[in-house]
């Protein structure tokens, strides 16, 4: 079964890059994308994706708040944080229950980065 992904990031540039990676490299299907934490909740409820990627710094509602609310509604939600933020928010997201964390910039032309990203996804979905 093809994995269904929702991407949440306030950068169209990043959404485009991630969509290309998930669909062309991983063979997943990106079913929706949103630009803030409020949309993250709406799109999670609507699509119940196999994985949601979530940025931290976003307008209206940030990724940390959205993550807490998504996990409160569905403790089994698979959420991977993809953010340039490396401070205490990163630790907080992992403590809250994020399944993985990738730091921007996303180096899709770097084989080692792609291998690590793929391994993180495999860890999240299991064997």
């Amino acid at each position: 079964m093809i994995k269904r992904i929702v991407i949440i990031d306030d950068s169209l540039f990043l959404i485009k890059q991630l969509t290309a990676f998930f669909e062309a490299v991983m063979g997943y299907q990106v079913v929706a994308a949103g630009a803030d934490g409020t949309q993250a909740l709406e799109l999670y409820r609507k699509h119940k994706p196999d994985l949601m990627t979530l940025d931290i710094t976003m307008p209206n509602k940030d990724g940390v708040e959205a993550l807490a609310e998504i996990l409160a509604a569905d403790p089994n939600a698979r959420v991977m944080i993809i953010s340039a933020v490396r401070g205490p928010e990163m630790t907080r997201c992992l403590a809250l229950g994020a399944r993985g964390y990738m730091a921007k910039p996303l180096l899709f032309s770097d084989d080692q980065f792609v291998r690590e990203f793929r391994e993180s996804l495999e860890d999240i979905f299991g064997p």
Partner: protein
Amino acid sequence: MSPNDPIVDALYEMVRSFEGCVTWAIRAILETETKPALPFRVTASFPEPQSLFCILPAGSANFHSQIIIGVEEADLPAIFPSEVDPKIRRDAVGEMANVISGLFVADDIFISRFGYLKPSSPFFSDGPFTARKDWSIEGNVEANGKLIHLHFSIRPIEDIRETSNLRGKNPEKSGTKP
């Protein structure tokens, strides 16, 4: 802020680190060779005039900082040759600011001087915007034959509050009609 202010000392201490974060982040995003046009420097200046500015603030209870990226909008197709959508090209400048900020505020020297500052989302200004002449780190990076201008400044929150109070008490300075 005087040249002897501890913040100016900190800027001198961080100048190479900022230059390194900027160069690496832009290289990673553009996937092309980038280099500073000249070594980054500490100066009391406004950002150099450009047709597009991207501003990314960060803050804590004690400090407020901002990273400003300035580019000529006409240069964006050359800077992002593989991107045809003007909206996404502009958005990619915001992503540059986001990545530079994320790297720089997590830098050891930065943390030791200022603690952790939480970055905000970037916003844009088409052309000139109101900026105070602050001591800052500034420099230009050359990428795909075009220049990208960078500017970083930081101020104590107390300093900002004092300026706001001063404006409130003096109609001429606040710009309101007497």
